[in-house]
């Protein structure tokens, strides 16, 4: 086994006191090597120590053998944005090791398999070789299974070197394997061996360490896709149709699991739901629209390419006024783009999806809690408004683990919207599907199967009058579109309001949405440290409502921060508020990774000319 090398690190370390609970770990592996368990166990162990953490998986679009990076950020201040720097590197991928090491922050620690016989080229970092092969070989796990647990070596080594009590690791493993003793034990054996080895062989020469805190009590750690699925279950979803696509697939996987758990009829053992894997996204949304029309709470989940394929049906649902929920877990576009990288690039697309004069309600959750909430609330909105509701998540929110407060039970019964019964029609003596009885632009609908001679109507994407009869009359068209406009105004009053932190005296406002929230939160602190006070409005839905107008009016300059190339939300604000457009500026960037606070701070300072 390796001996400890002596490096002239003193100059670096001398200046650096211990850095506790405030750094980033980067674990570089290849995909298919099973590191995901090791990484999330590490993350969860520190979370259970009470330390605010966040983890991001940067993985390739293939199944096996390509570089994958996992970052774990610890932040005693509770920041969860992506840091550009990393301070502790676990280099498990020889292919990328040179780059990985080159980018390690000065003073950082580099763990790597000693089999590499790595040349220690940088003298401003600490190298820690790990006997990965030796330790796995030495484990009493059956030989054919030993490679399964190789990654546990770095878990054990890091536990020693960062000062993580093994009980936390064991707890995390227990959580990961759902309490199954055998895999927990087998993995723990390797962890323990590595831990012991490190105790004996490695001397701590870098400043990075963890310490228990009390900042995660009562919080949970979950990925957005799982939260969305759970939300949908509590939203009473009865129908989901989908077609697999990264990064939305795990949403439906979770949904199927949750439904099987919580929505099997106890009396009959049968399903109170159906989940259908369609042959493509046109099929998926078509099924969902059919189900929504028939009265179900129906949803699909997809990503950009699927959204593109749903364009025509989105227009039909808009114009025939069929409720359904579409989750777009965004990835990089245009086109197939980067299937395993994050972006907020579908904002304009979803908002306007469909040819002709089409415009959709879009929810923009920014936290795991909100994702859960919109998971059920989207159905209420869709049925109330009788239209599609898009929920925009993204790969970062959807597939990475985030801290969250516990989920809150829906605060009201399900709102099934305006659905007439046979009795209602009997009483009224008439029924006109698209009549604006209440002045809110929303007609009353009936469901197939209603037992009344006047109960049926004919849904279609072609021009129709208030009685749902085919019509090419100019006035019918104009009236119908005017009613849809009124419905849009109603939607403004029903969608979630933005979250505003208005700072008195702040000249500039920041507007953001979705997964960029952690970045904005941290950058605002950095900016304020530089003397730039900012207000902050986090959009949570389209159409916009008046809070946003007032926010913009009350700042001289407003920067719209988003993780795409074209500044799509800024464009929407420009087109919705032309009178305010000159003060609305875009700060947009997209390279596949979550936005970093350092970048945002610099971008704002630059635009502010500071």
């Amino acid at each position, binding site marked *: 086994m390796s001996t400890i090398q002596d490096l002239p690190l003193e100059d670096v370390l001398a200046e650096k006191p211990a850095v506790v609970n405030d750094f980033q770990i980067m674990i570089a592996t290849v995909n298919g090597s099973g590191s995901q368990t090791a990484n999330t166990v590490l993350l969860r162990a520190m979370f259970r120590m009470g330390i605010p953490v966040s983890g991001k998986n940067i993985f390739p679009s293939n199944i096996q053998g390509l570089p994958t990076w996992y970052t774990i950020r610890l932040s005693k201040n509770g920041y969860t944005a992506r840091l550009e720097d990393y301070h502790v590197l676990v280099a498990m991928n020889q292919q990328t090791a040179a780059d990985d090491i080159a980018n390690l922050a000065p003073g950082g620690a580099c763990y790597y398999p000693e089999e590499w016989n790595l040349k220690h080229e940088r003298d401003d970092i600490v190298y820690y070789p790990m006997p990965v092969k030796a330790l796995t070989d030495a484990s009493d796990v059956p030989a054919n299974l030993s490679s399964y647990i190789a990654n546990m070596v770095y878990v054990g080594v890091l536990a020693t070197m960062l000062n993580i009590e093994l009980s936390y690791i064991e707890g995390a493993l227990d959580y990961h394997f759902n309490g199954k003793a055998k895999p927990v034990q087998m993995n723990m054996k390797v962890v323990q061996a590595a831990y012991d080895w490190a105790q004996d062989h490695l001397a701590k020469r870098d400043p990075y360490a963890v310490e228990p805190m009390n900042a995660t009590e009562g919080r949970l750690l979950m990925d957005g896709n799982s939260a969305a699925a759970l939300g949908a279950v509590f939203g009473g979803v*009865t129908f989901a149709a989908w077609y697999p696509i990264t990064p939305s697939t795990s949403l439906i996987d979770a949904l199927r699991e949750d439904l099987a758990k919580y929505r099997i009829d106890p009396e009959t053992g049968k399903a109170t739901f159906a989940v259908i894997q369609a042959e493509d996204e046109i099929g998926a949304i078509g099924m969902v629209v059919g189900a929504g*029309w028939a009265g179900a709470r129906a949803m699909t989940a997809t990503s950009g390419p699927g959204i593109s394929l749903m364009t025509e049906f989105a227009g039909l649902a808009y114009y025939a006024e069929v409720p359904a929920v579409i989750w777009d877990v965004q990835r990089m576009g245009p086109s197939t783009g980067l299937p395993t990288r994050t972006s907020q690039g579908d904002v304009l697309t979803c908002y306007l999806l469909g040819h002709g004069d089409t415009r959709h309600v879009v929810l923009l959750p920014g936290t795991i809690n909100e994702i859960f909430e919109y998971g059920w609330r989207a159905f209420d909105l869709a049925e109330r408004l009788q239209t599609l509701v898009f929920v925009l998540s993204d790969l970062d929110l959807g597939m990475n683990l985030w801290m969250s407060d516990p989920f809150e039970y829906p605060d009201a019964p399900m709102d099934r919207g305006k659905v007439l019964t046979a009795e209602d029609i009997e009483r009224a003596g008439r029924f006109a599907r698209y009549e604006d009885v209440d002045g809110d632009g929303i007609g009353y609908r009936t469901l197939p199967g*209603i037992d009344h001679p006047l109960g049926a109507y004919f849904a279609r994407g072609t021009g129709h009058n208030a009685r749902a009869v085919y019509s090419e009359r100019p006035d019918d068209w104009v009236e119908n579109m005017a009613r849809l406009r009124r419905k849009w105004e109603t939607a403004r009053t029903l969608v979630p309001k933005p979250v505003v932190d208005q700072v008195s005296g702040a000249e500039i406002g920041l507007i953001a949405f979705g997964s960029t929230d952690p970045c904005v939160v941290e950058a605002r602190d950095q900016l304020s440290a530089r003397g730039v006070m900012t207000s902050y409005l986090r959009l949570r839905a389209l159409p916009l409502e008046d809070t946003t107008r007032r926010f913009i009016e009350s700042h001289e300059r407003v920067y719209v921060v988003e993780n795409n190339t074209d500044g799509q939300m800024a464009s929407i604000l420009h087109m919705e508020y032309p009178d305010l457009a000159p003060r609305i500026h875009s700060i947009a960037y997209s390279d596949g990774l979550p936005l970093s606070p350092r970048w945002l701070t610099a971008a704002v300072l630059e635009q502010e000319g500071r």
Partner: protein
Amino acid sequence: MAANARVNEIGLSRNDYKGGVSTLCQGCGHNSIANQIIAVAYEMSLDPHQVIKLSGIGCSSKSPAYFLNRSHGFNGLHGRMPALATGATTVNRSLIAIGVSGDGDTGSIGLGQFKHMVRRNVPIVYIVENNGVYGLTKGQFSATADYGQELKYAGVNELPPIDICLEALAADASFVARSFAGDSKQVRELLKAAIAHRGTAVLDIISPCVTFNNHEDSTKSYAYGKAKEEPLHDITFIPFYEPIEIEDQEPGQVRAVKLYDGSHLMLKALDPTKHDPTDRMAAFRLLEEAREQQLFITGLIYVDENRATLPEISRLVDTPLVHLPPEKLRPPREVLDEINRRLTCCN
């Protein structure tokens, strides 16, 4: 006694099954089919409120507006009715779905969805009103057009036709039948069988387009020699035709039906004593032979009453999903509490 005065088992008159006034061309086969649907629904005493009518886009797909006004209808997108039907019938398994499509709708743009619907055995009577052309867009070839057929504006079709029945069969259809719009009796019989069928019942009904499929030269027909008149007018004039209606056909017999332009369609009624419709291989053979002989087999080609339907595969509760009360849909507060407890730090 007026027909209207009569009522069926559930007390509805034939009129109660009618639809709006057709806006299709006079003589269009699609109208005959709509009329047979009305007749059959009345005769079978279907509850119109339990029926849903679905369609794509095309002249054929307009049909649902012309029957069963008391039923909900959804005139969807071109070629995408199968998806709508899949969703609707899954969430309300008590509905009887009648889908009407065209050969363009099903055979061209919709071929993929059609086949996947068939494969899932979605409970629906799926009618293809097959005329070999795109009626509504004025006479282009559809994928079922005869090889070598000539149309005024589209020229000569050099591609082999897609056979809707063969496609259904290949996709494991549980019910495959073919008929001719002018053979009201057979259409009615097959419609009844289709409605009684549990899964997808594919009904390919040859329904000539009086306006655009006025081919003089067709592999379906013997040559029509009439020397063509110089056209006095352009395509915007559409003459009125009487619908074609044929008499009862003897099983096994081949019959040539004269179409509007004098061309002929060769039909052969299946002889049920000779063909076992539960024999898949026999069905393939039948279709392949008919193809070689350039004629259309009519009748019930294949049926499998045992294949599980999509709601069955999905192991749904008996109550239609859309009728489940809120308490069956939203788990109680305690369940979320328990989830939160399990998830939150640091148990």
